[in-house]
């Protein structure tokens, strides 16, 4: 019962830190999010070290906390991969917008060029008519 209460407190603490880590709105890039995750991890580790030194964490509890840290490490690895994918996606999206913009510019130039060609054709047709009339 006592140990269960202690485990429950640890799980609650870890869940609290993890949920806090997931809901930080100020962080805009993958680098910033990863920095926040590492800073949180460092502070949690420092707290665990202090608690261990003060005798609040016995060997059995340390094994449980270490398992939680290992799980946290895996979660961080997963988060790192996900964030890189997200960043790459964002970059790709930005690039696509740029490309769309550039293509739009190209299309505008092509249309302008086509209009000029049409104007030139009209002029050439007029010239042809004048020449045909002169031949008559």
């Amino acid at each position, binding site marked *: 019962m006592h140990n269960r*209460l202690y485990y*429950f407190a640890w799980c609650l603490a870890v869940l609290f830190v993890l949920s806090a880590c997931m809901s930080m709105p100020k962080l805009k890039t993958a680098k910033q999010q990863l920095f926040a995750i590492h800073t949180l991890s460092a502070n949690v580790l420092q707290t665990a070290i202090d608690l261990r030194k003060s005798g609040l964490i016995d060997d059995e509890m340390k094994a449980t906390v270490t398992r939680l840290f290992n799980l946290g490490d895996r979660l961080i690895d997963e988060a790192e991969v996900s964030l890189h994918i997200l960043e790459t996606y964002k970059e790709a999206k930005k690039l696509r917008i740029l490309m769309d913009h550039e293509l739009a510019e190209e299309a505008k130039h092509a249309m302008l060029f086509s209009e000029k060609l049409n104007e030139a054709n009209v002029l050439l047709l007029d010239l042809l008519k004048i020449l045909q009339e002169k031949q008559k």
Partner: protein
Amino acid sequence: MSANAIQMLEKIVSASIVITSAVSAYNKAMIEITNTLHNMREEGRDDLTDEELAEAQKRVEDLRKEWDAL
């Protein structure tokens, strides 16, 4: 008060210390993150440097080694 009740109370206090320590760790981390982002903006940068990120990662690795050694 019986010995069992005292032991139970002791565990409840210990569990409370764990929870308040987690909240404190979160607060400290928030202050660090906010300060770093503030400095970044003050310096006119859009993002953190690779060195800053590597430093944060190394800090975790060092603390993890310390934890494993305890």
